[in-house]
C-alpha cells in the first residue's frame, strides 16, 4: 500500500497539512491535518510498504511495543482508507 500521488504534505506554522493537488481535488476538497507522528508515517507511506514494514518502522522510530504500533497504525490506516487516500498494489 502507498499514499496516492497528488497529495502533498506541507508544514505551515508548525502544522502538518495534506493538500490535494491537480486531479485529486476532484475526490478530496479541503485538507487533512496530521500530528507529527502521523506525518512521519505518512512520509514513510509515500513509498510502497507492507503493513508489517510500517509496524517495524514505528517500533524502531518511537520505541513502542508491537501491539501498540499495530493498534495505532490500524486506526491511522482506517482513517486514510475512509478518505480514499491509499492505493494498493494488485
Amino acid at each position: 500500500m502507498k499514499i496516492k500521488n497528488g497529495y502533498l504534505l506541507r508544514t505551515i506554522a508548525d502544522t502538518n497539512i495534506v493538500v490535494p493537488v491537480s486531479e485529486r481535488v476532484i475526490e478530496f476538497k479541503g485538507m487533512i491535518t496530521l500530528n507529527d507522528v502521523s506525518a512521519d508515517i505518512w512520509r514513510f507511506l509515500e513509498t510502497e510498504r507492507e503493513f508489517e514494514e510500517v509496524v517495524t518502522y514505528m517500533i524502531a522510530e518511537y520505541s513502542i511495543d508491537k501491539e501498540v504500533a499495530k493498534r495505532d497504525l490500524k486506526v491511522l490506516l482506517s482513517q486514510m482508507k475512509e478518505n480514499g487516500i491509499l492505493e494498493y498494489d494488485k
Partner: protein
Amino acid sequence: MINNEKARAWESADSTFAAHCARRHIPLRGTFELTPRCNFHCKMCYLHQTSEEINLRGKRELTTNEWIKIAEDAINAGTLNLMITGGEPLLRDDFATIYNEINQMGFIIGLNTNASLLDEKYYRLFSKYPPSTVSVTLYGADRETYRRITGNEGHFDNTVKGLEYLKDIPTSLDIKVTFIKDNYHKLDRIRETANRYTDRFAINYMVFKPVPGVSSEAESCRLSAKECLNIDISNRKYYYELRKKTGTENEYDPAASENDPHRDYGLDIYPEVLTCLAAKAAYWISWDGRMLPCATFDEMATEPLKEGFSEAWNRLPELFAGIRHPEECVKCEHFYTCPNCPAYFFAETGSYDTVSPYICDMVKERTKSDKQEDSRRRPQDKTAKQCKTINNTD
C-alpha cells in the same frame, strides 16, 4: 457537486487556522491579481484598465515566469489559500500555463471570474484540474441590466453559458452580486438565477471610489445608505423565511455570519489599525507585481520581485506604523462593528484618518434600523458580544 460537506467543514476550520497563522505572521492567504484588464466595462469598477492605459502609465503586467516565481516563493513562505483574480484572469493568453504550474504546487486554489470567457477549452482544463472554489460575479438576471452595468448585453448570454459549464465542474461554486442603482430592484430575480447554479449566494453593496489612475462612475451609481440597508434587509428576510420553511440554516444566510471572526482575532495583532487579516496572514499581489495588504490598500506596497518575497512580506506591517484610526472612530460606539478600515477611508477621502461619510452614514442607518428591528432576528447585541471576545483574546 462533489465533497461539499468536506469543503464546508474545511472552510470553518480554516478561520481558526488563519488566526493561528496571523499570530505567527505567516502569509497563509494570497491573492494573485493576474491582470487589471477585463472584457467587461463595469461602470463601478475600481480597477479596470485597458492595455493602452497600462502602457500610457509606463507599466506592464507580470510575465508568465514572474507569476510562477512568485507562486514558488509563496509556497516556501507558507501560503496555503491562493485566490486568482483580475480584472478578468481568463483574459490572459497564458492563463492555462500559469494555472497548470501553480496547480501542482500545493495551494488550495480559488478563482474569481465573471464566467463569460469560460469555453470548451477552460471547461476541459477545470474538469481535469478543478479549483477548490470558483466565485462568479453576476451583475443581473437579464441582458438589459448587463448592458447598463457591463456595457454589453451579450455579456449576459456569455455569463449564463459559462455558468452552465461550471455546473458540471467538480468545484464549490459561489455567486456574488454587487448592487448599484442599475440592479437595485432585481435582487429576487438575480438570486433566483444564481440559485439555478448554486445556493452559495452573497451580496455586496459597498462600492468604493477607484484606485488612482482609474476612472469609474462609482460615486454616481452606488446605492445610498438607505438603499444599502433596504437591500440587506430584503436579503435577510428571504433567508429568514427560508430558514423558517426548511428548518435549516443556509450557509449564506446573513444571520449565520453575524459575527465576523476576522475582527475578533485581528484587533490585537500588529498592525492593530487593520482589523482584518491583511498584512497579518493575508496579502495581495497586484498585476504589476507589488505586494499589498489587500486590493483597497493600493498605496501601501512592498516589492516581492525586487526585495524577495519573505522580505516584502516581513516589511508589509511596518508600512502601517504611523497610521491611526480617526479620533472620532475610536470614541464612537460603533467602532467594533463598523467597516472603518483606513483603506476605505483613503479610497473615499484621500486620507487614512479622515472619516468617510459614505461609510459612516451606512453604519448609522443600519444601527437606527437594528434598534427598530424585531428582536427575533437579532437575538444578541453584536457590539457587546464582540467587545467581550476582544477582551478575552489569549
